[in-house]
């Protein structure tokens, strides 16, 4: 896979030389390929947010390099600013950054900063609104009159409208109801498919991670400790629990079944996979519990 973004031996120290000195990232290296859907998990304070802010040049590494399409993004100030249009970052609770008079204008903020023509800005805003399911009527409303879920969508559209090659989302579904969660994830997948973009998603929901990502990064105490497929990561439940994380609920069920002596592999991490494993057992009547 063609690499888009590369983090090379990056470390980051907050508040160097003060009593509050804190190493948030310690020698992290990883590569993101084009079109990949990558999950990022880790307990609170493990360095996830610091890591993703390095990916679009908001934070400068204390040590190491960040490369976008092979170029060091800190070698030139213009490159650093351009990187922000290629790597879109949606922060946690992005609805708190809305400020314009209408939703349309707010979504247009990013594309306008890119210096695009008015027609192009308009086209991009409409496209972005389409991805997240914001109607034309809503585009003319004040962003503060929208519901919580719609605000979140408008804010995500504000980043999508820049049509970044890499879209990074920090807990995009936090605080939403189950229907809102699934539909936002659908929106993200739709954008990824339409643009061939890479997506990096931070989440605390193992279920969300399990059913969306191709690859999973695990952060623990400022270190990147795992970089593998979800199947490989979720095959190590003890290690995850030790890091304050967990395996998806269905995997927990399968593990419990194994503990009870049922001969079933604990390799499923979505409900669909588990169904495939368990149905034959039930039909065959071999299950011993």
């Amino acid at each position, binding site marked *: 896979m063609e690499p888009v973004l590369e983090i090379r031996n990056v470390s980051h120290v907050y508040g160097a030389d003060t009593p509050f000195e804190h190493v948030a990232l310690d020698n992290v290296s990883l590569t993101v390929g084009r079109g990949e859907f990558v999950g990022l998990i880790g307990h609170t304070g493990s360095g996830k947010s610091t890591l993703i802010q390095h990916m679009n040049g908001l934070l400068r590494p204390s040590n190491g390099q960040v490369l976008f399409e092979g170029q060091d993004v800190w070698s030139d100030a213009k490159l650093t600013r351009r990187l922000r249009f290629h790597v879109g970052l949606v922060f946690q609770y992005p609805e708190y*950054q809305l400020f314009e008079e209408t939703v349309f204008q707010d979504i247009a903020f990013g594309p306008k900063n890119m210096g695009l023509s008015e027609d192009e800005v308009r086209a991009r805003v409409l496209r972005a609104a389409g991805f997240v399911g914001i109607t034309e009527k809503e585009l003319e409303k004040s962003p503060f009159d929208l519901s919580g879920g719609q605000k979140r969508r408008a804010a995500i559209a504000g980043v999508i409208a820049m049509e970044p090659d890499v879209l990074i989302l920090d807990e995009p579904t936090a605080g939403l109801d189950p229907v809102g969660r699934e539909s936002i994830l659908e929106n993200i997948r739709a954008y990824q498919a339409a643009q061939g973009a890479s997506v990096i998603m931070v989440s605390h929901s193992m279920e969300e991670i399990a059913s969306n990502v191709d690859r999973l990064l695990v952060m623990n105490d400022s270190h990147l400790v795992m970089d593998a497929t979800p199947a490989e990561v979720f095959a190590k439940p003890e290690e995850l629990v030790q890091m304050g994380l967990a395996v998806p609920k269905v995997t927990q069920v399968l593990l419990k079944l194994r503990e009870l002596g049922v001969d079933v592999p604990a390799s499923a991490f979505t409900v669909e996979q588990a169904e495939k494993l368990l149905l034959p057992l039930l039909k065959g009547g071999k299950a011993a519990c």
Partner: protein
Amino acid sequence: MLKDVTLGQYFPGETAVHKMDPRTKLVLVIVYIVALFLAKGAAGYALVAGCLLAVVWISKIHLKVILKGLKPLMLIIILTAVLNLFYGQGEPLVQFWIFKITKQGIENAVFMVLRITLLVAGTFMLTYTTSPIALTDGLESLLSPLKKIGAPVHELAMMMCIALRFIPTLIEETDKIMSAQKARGADFESGNILARAKALIPILVPLFISAFRRADELATAMECRCYHGGEGRTKLHALHYAGRDYTAYCLGALMLAGVIVLRRFGL
């Protein structure tokens, strides 16, 4: 970054200065300021500066931190020095065009710089070693006699406490919003004054909205916990004077007396 703002910041610690009663520290800061303004000659300034250095040493706050805090005041300090340098009376030492530098001018400049630096550094020691909560507690306790004439001392202290409490929160929030808008390509560093002022809108609007929201939520939370103002309210951590406070008061009085005596002799 905004996080580097050290003005009014508290550095937790376990030293005698940190543990001292906030009332003692507040009174001593006032004594210190009075002494500083009474000091006339080099000996007086040396005494005050020596006391400050002793406090800094006991509190284990790095001098570097204090110097960093003084940085934003550099302009004022330099301006004062330059103005005083040229406004001295008496026999000129150097003279060019309409400017003249006198011995008195140099003396004035040095003492004024010393005075401002010591004044600010001294008050820094108060905020560096006292948590905002302790500070407002101390202030409320010291001002409580004013309650008799109907001054809303508790309410003012509570307002100050809340304001102090939310400074770091709002700074953090500003940082977050700035990052979010930067991620959308906002540019705060280039352009003329008008462009820069306009660039602040994407920060200020969300910041104000969130500040109002926080205020609203805090008011509800306080109401839920039956907050009804100061009357009959007791404290979890009541203030008590300890031995070190009396020692500190005595040393403070000694410093003041010393400065007054030195002033008498014109030192």
